[in-house]
């Protein structure tokens, strides 16, 4: 990767330097800015005053907004018709109010009242209890209505007729503050005036605020606190505002943070440029250094993205610690930190792997065994880290959708896959370093046996309590990595870089998912045994403890110390909720109820969570001290055990009222149980969706085996055999599998003196496991593929030709099989996408329609029940209300759906009173539902309601209550909607998975078809190339009888003809060559014979003549004869060497060393004016061949060059590697060769030298060709001559050596 990413070396280094310098400058600027801002912010009083001014300014804006909203509502022309009693005008007024509300920026609720105070029309959430009461104002009036839970800003304006008589009022109301003290994924408290900033205290002032409020905390003390009153335009005080100056440290902090992020981005870029620079130093070292710098820049400055408040950087999602200095723990302090750290570790591991792959170990028994043993701790550490990660992560890591919408889960999965890939790379490095056992296939069998023995020993002796290794994934990883280490060359060749990356990612994901399931299962079992089971047993004590603390808290609240003036203000309804939310009953989400009674014992305020029916009001408690008892509350045939605490509220000896606290005494409060009530998430401190671990169920049986409690709808019976087993089990506890709700579930059974308990969770079915595994693998592969495509696009932008989209298109364009493959896949993708979309839309639509139809049918049944109940109620002697909460709770329990009944648009009764009592829902039905059912006569209405971030569908129908006002019945469908959404979620998942599988199958089929079509063509191409290279024995096996088969036959025929012709030609050439050879031999041998003959005759003549100088003549003639004989021997030797077949000793040789050896004797013997330049770089791959012949080839080239330069000149010898071949260049600056000579220099016996045999260069050519290489000579008359001898690099080592060369 580093090779293809590499920009030009020096430019990248320069970029790294300047980016780094700029980053440091930005850090300095940020710090200076922060320091300056802090210095400027030293004046506390001035900052407090400015802050107060801002808050009051916000208040004025809100006042203006509600005033103008009320005035705009009053100006609606439809209002007059509606006030005159026109029913059609009233329907139009509802519409007009809704439209007007949609246009207003703050979207306040709007209402029109008649002069008598009757609410005629409304839009938005209208809380009757907060509507200002009293005489209609003469002009627009703004006031605050402060309640226990909420405070509302309301503007009221008169609505006058044409004759200026008062016809009614228009009201706009905006919730200023919510203080429910409940925080969850859907709701949070807010204050519009302070905007939730600490140090701003707001007390809203309203006519009915005092008696019903839970006391506020005492104000914070500060010398520079400023206070002022926020007033309405007419001077009415609306709130008191007290502000503290913001601390100076905070000034400029955001800006400094932005500087840090910018600096982080610059320094990261600098590190990347450095890592991929071309020089200096080894590439691997720069990569290691660059990635290390990058990681520590991110650690020190934080990543430029995502921001500090992202869940990707939240330890709530994931965090862990590392041994050593504290700052190192920042490496694993959040999901994104873990991902960066894993990526860094992966780079280091891949670097190690690359070095290991470059070694070529001799087969041995010891190294592989040592490597296998070393692999065990690697596996141990790897899976310990995976376990630690799953333990310290709050996310449900076992779920990953193919289209991930949850970035933290995807980040964690990528990090885990990276971890496994790192471990895999280390194992592969060990395997590559180890090499193989000697003995070929026998060695392979021995190795397999060694692995089996090692695996068996590991399985037997592995410390499971310390490192709970998931055996199968670990074994799979070990085998995959070991084989990859052994077969890396063929893998790289067959898959290419993209294929290897994708396969590696998929393999890592395939190991990650089962590991997570293993650890998840282990963690769940541990949690069930050690946490949940004891929690169940201690729950009664915990409930009593919380009740005791609740009583203490209620005592501190001094409830009803100031008696509410009678009649009780409407806001008093919320007081019980305010009290409940101020106690631990709310903090821990207990099923509970708070009731407040006045001094006469009349119920004045009540809030209940999951304790709906309490029957008749409890009598006044006996005294001011708390008393409590265990009771059973009945709803029809069902009884609910509760703890009931109560006391009188007595102040200064005077009875002010009483308080009753009820706490459900059953198992629904256990925090690990999933509540079936969809609204429970609104009242409990619940984790965000996606964080929850697997759902657990609880079964409780008495000692006789009778079911006492079940969180499941279809609980199993506890058979006598199982009960006996449990009684006899060690520790009185055991794990078993029971069928719960029709599905097998792992169940932990345990007991105490009175009960048997079972905690269960669904067993993961093999089909589901396989589907999830596939989905995880596909999702991670898709993400990695997307990353690769992004990288390619980036390289396109940078103008790179390799690993770019352009390059990919080029490769596809050049290869017929790839084109076919892409075409087949494209043809498959389009219908799959269309089909997926159509099926999805169709099924969703059908399911939703069916769900709505069922809901309306249910509403019809509920209407019948409510109408019958109302009829019976009217006949009862004390039937004042047609429907009661208790009745609706009963009907709702039969229908398994909540119900609300409205009369004249106002809530009459509800099975979910807590939603209204807590102020989460307004007590008015939505305006457009009222309009369409009550005014326009529609039979049904479906509308989406929202509570904070919680939305649900509600079906409404008219209901006959025989009252003056029209009755409406509304059914919130949250539970059904949740069920439908779960079904749809599963369906979408199944569709996506099926599509992915179909596409994968289509891709495999496309690959197969493309190969079958392009295979013969590729074979023909290959054979043609072989023939072009001289291999006339090349043939192609016909694969079919079609046109391609005919082409193959014709090709084979052509090759046979060519082969035959060449043999004929070779025969004739050989004869000619022999003739030429004989001629040359005769010619060469004849030349020395003449001097020999002449010398011999001369010697005989001198001897016969008896010359006095005979000895001298003898000496001279013998010398001549011996010289010529020597010449003959040399000629014969050279002929012999030329004709001799190449030696069979073939070994890899380092050409650098070989050339050095050849040059060594020449360096001393060179003429003084001949300069020898040698360039032998390191890292050139070796050449396989006969060393003696290779040396001879180099010597001949060198000799030629020496003869060309004579006594003066320069010779250069250079070694290089290029495109898989090793090149030796010998250059001289001699006279050069003219073209005619140059063409013949490689012919045997051709020589321009007087003493040359003409075989030197011919021999070089023969040696080169025998080694699979060649030789060329380039020269022009009078210029330099360049001889190039090239030889193929040794295959097995060419790739890494080439990479090393490239890296330099």
């Amino acid at each position, binding site marked *: 990767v580093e090779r293809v990413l590499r920009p030009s070396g020096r430019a990248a280094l320069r970029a790294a330097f300047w980016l780094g310098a700029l980053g440091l400058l930005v850090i300095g600027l940020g710090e200076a800015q922060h320091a300056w801002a802090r210095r400027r912010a030293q004046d506390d009083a001035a900052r407090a005053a400015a802050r107060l001014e801002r808050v009051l300014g916000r208040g004025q804006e809100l006042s203006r907004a509600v005033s103008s909203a009320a005035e705009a509502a009053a100006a609606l022309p439809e209002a007059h018709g509606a006030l005159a009693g026109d029913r059609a005008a009233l329907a139009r007024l509802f519409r007009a109010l809704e439209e007007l509300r949609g246009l207003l920026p703050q979207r306040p609720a709007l209402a029109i009242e008649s002069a008598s105070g009757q609410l005629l029309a409304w839009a938005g959430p209208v809380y009757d209890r907060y509507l200002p009461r009293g005489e209609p104002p003469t002009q627009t009036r703004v006031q605050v209505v402060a309640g226990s839970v909420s405070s509302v800003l309301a503007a009221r304006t008169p609505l006058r007729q044409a004759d200026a008589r008062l016809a009614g009022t228009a009201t706009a109301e905006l919730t200023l503050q919510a203080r429910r003290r409940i925080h969850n994924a859907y709701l949070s408290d807010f204050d519009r005036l302070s905007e939730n900033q600490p140090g701003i205290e707001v007390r809203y002032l309203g006519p009915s605020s005092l008696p019903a409020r839970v006391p506020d905390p005492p104000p*914070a003390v500060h010398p520079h606190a400023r206070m002022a009153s926020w007033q309405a335009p007419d001077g009415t005080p609306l709130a008191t505002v007290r502000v*503290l*100056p913001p601390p100076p440290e905070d000034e400029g902090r955001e800006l400094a943070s932005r500087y840090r992020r910018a600096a982080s981005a610059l320094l990261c870029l600098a590190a990347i440029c450095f890592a991929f620079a071309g020089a200096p130093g080894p590439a691997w070292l720069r990569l290691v250094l660059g990635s290390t710098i990058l990681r520590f820049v991110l650690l020190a400055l934080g990543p430029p993205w995502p921001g500090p408040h992202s869940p990707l950087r939240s330890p709530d999602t994931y965090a862990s610690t590392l041994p050593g200095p504290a700052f190192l723990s920042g490496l694993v302090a959040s999901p994104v930190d873990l991902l960066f750290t894993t990526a860094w570790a992966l780079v280091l591991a891949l670097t190690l792997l690359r070095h290991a792959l470059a070694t070529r170990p001799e087969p041995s028994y010891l190294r592989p065994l040592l490597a296998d043993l070393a692999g065990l701790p690697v596996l141990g550490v790897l899976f310990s880290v995976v376990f630690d990660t799953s333990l*310290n992560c709050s996310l449900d890591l076992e779920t990953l959708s193919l289209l991930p919408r949850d970035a933290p889960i995807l980040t964690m999965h990528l990090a885990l896959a990276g971890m496994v890939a790192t471990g895999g790379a280390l194992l592969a490095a060990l395997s590559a370093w180890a090499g193989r056992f000697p003995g070929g296939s026998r060695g392979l069998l021995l190795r397999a046996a060694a692995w089996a023995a090692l695996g068996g020993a590991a399985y037997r002796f592995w410390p499971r309590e310390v490192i709970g290794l998931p055996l199968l994934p670990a074994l799979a990883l070990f085998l995959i990595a070991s084989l990859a280490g052994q077969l890396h060359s063929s893998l790289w060749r067959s898959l290419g870089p993209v294929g290897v990356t994708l396969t590696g990612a998929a393999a890592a994901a395939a190991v990650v998912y089962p590991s997570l399931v293993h650890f998840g299962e282990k963690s769940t079992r541990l949690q069930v045994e050690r946490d949940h089971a004891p929690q169940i047993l201690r729950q009664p004590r915990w409930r009593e*403890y919380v009740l005791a603390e609740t*009583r203490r808290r209620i005592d501190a609240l001094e409830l009803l110390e100031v008696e509410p003036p009678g009649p009780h203000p409407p806001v008093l309804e919320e007081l019980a909720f305010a009290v409940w939310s101020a106690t631990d009953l709310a903090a821990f989400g207990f099923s509970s109820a708070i009731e407040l009674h006045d001094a006469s014992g009349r119920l004045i305020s009540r809030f209940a969570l999951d304790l709906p029916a309490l029957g008749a009001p409890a009598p006044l408690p006996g005294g001011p001290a708390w008393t409590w008892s265990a009771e059973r509350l009945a709803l029809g045939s069902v009884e609910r055990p509760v703890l009931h605490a109560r006391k009188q509220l007595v102040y200064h000896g005077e009875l002010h009222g009483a308080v009753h606290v009820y706490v459900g005494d059953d198992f629904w409060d256990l925090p690990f149980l999933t509540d079936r009530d969809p609204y429970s998430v609104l009242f409990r401190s619940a984790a965000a969706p996606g964080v929850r671990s697997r759902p657990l169920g609880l079964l409780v049986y008495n000692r006789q085996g009778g079911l006492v409690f079940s969180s499941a709808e279809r609980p199993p019976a506890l058979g006598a055999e199982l009960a006996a087993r449990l009684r006899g089990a060690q520790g009185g506890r055991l794990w078993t599998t029971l069928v719960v709700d029709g599905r097998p579930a792992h169940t932990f059974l345990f007991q105490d003196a009175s009960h048997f308990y079972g905690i269960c969770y669904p067993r993961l079915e093999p089909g589901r496991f396989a589907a999830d595994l596939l989905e995880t693998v596909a999702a991670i592969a898709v993400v990695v593929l997307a990353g690769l495509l992004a990288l390619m696009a980036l390289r396109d932008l940078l103008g790179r030709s390799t690993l770019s989209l352009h390059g990919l298109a080029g490769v596809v364009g050049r290869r017929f099989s790839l084109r076919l493959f892409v075409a087949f896949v494209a043809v498959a993708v389009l219908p799959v996408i269309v089909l997926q979309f159509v099926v999805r839309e169709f099924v969703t639509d059908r399911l939703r329609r069916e769900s709505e139809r069922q809901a309306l049918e249910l509403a019809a049944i509920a209407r019948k029940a409510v109408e019958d109940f109302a009829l019976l109620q009217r006949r009862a002697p004390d039937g004042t209300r047609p429907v009661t909460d208790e009745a609706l709770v009963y009907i709702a329990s039969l229908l398994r759906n909540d119900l609300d009944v409205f009369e004249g648009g106002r809530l009459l009764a509800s099975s979910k009173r807590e939603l209204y009592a807590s102020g989460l829902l307004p007590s008015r039905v939505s305006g457009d539902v009222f309009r369409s059912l009550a005014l326009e006569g529609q039979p049904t209405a479906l509308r989406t309601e929202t509570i904070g971030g919680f939305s649900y569908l509600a079906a409404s129908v008219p209901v006959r209550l025989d009252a003056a006002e029209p009755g409406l019945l509304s059914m919130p469908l949250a539970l059904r909607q949740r069920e439908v959404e779960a079904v749809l979620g599963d369906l979408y998942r199944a569709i996506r998975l099926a599509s992915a599988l179909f596409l994968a199958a289509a891709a495999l089929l496309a690959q197969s078809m493309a190969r079958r079509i392009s295979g013969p063509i590729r074979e023909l191409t290959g054979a043609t190339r072989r023939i072009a290279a001289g291999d006339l024995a090349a043939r192609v096996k016909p694969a079919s009888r079609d046109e391609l088969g005919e082409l193959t036959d014709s090709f084979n025929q052509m090759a046979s003809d060519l082969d035959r012709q060449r043999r004929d030609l070779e025969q004739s050439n050989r004869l000619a060559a022999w003739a030429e050879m004989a001629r040359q031999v005769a010619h060469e041998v004849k030349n020395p014979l003449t001097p020999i003959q002449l010398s011999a005759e001369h010697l005989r003549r001198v001897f016969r003549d008896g010359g006095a100088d005979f000895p001298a003549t003898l000496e001279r003639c013998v010398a001549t004869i011996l010289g010529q004989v020597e010449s003959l021997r040399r000629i014969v030797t050279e002929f012999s060497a030329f004709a001799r077949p190449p030696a069979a000793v073939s070994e890899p040789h380092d050409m650098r060393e070989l050339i050095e050896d050849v040059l060594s004797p020449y360096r001393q013997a060179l003429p003084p004016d001949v300069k020898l330049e040698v360039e032998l770089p390191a890292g050139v791959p070796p050449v396989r061949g006969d060393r003696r012949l290779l040396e001879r080839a180099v010597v001949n080239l060198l000799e030629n060059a020496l003869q060309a330069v004579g006594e003066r000149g320069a010779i250069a010898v250079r070694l290089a590697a290029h495109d898989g071949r090793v090149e030796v260049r010998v250059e001289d600056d001699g006279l050069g060769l003219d073209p005619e000579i140059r063409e013949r220099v490689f012919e045997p016996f051709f020589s321009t030298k007087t003493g040359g045999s003409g075989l030197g260069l011919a021999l070089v050519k023969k040696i080169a060709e025998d080694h699979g290489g060649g030789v060329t000579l380039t020269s022009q008359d009078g210029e330099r001559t360049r001889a190039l001898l090239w030889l193929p690099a040794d295959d097995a080592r060419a790739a890494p050596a080439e990479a090393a060369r490239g890296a330099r």
Partner: protein
Amino acid sequence: MRKTLVLALLALALGAAGGTASAQSLPPGLQTRLQRIETAFQQGDAGALHGSFATSGKLRVDLEGLTEGQETYGARQLQVIFGQIFGEFRTRDFRFAPEEVSVPSPATAFARGRWTRAGRREPVERVETLTFTLREEGTDWRILEIRSSR
């Protein structure tokens, strides 16, 4: 002997109103652990607090406004979370009220601590009540749950 003592303590605890136990009647291991927790909070030392967490499995923690709802966390994860909390807020005081420490069953204790803290970048001081559930592990007591209370 120890079992008898624990049962006696339990009986004493149940006999008291609401199951609370006085500081004198607390098991010594629990008392030491509570003191260590107090010290860890007072010194803002997340590492020391980590030593008080249960040694296996996850812990249930719900700190209003500081964690994202009621969830279970690993011990190391909680160490980092508390490290961040202690970095953000300076502890002015942390005390367990002796009358609000309860040992309702032999191996379980509930304790409420008042935590007075001020944001390092806020001018306001807040008082938070945290309820701890502790489990007996050998002779030691470890935190199982921490929840914000009212």
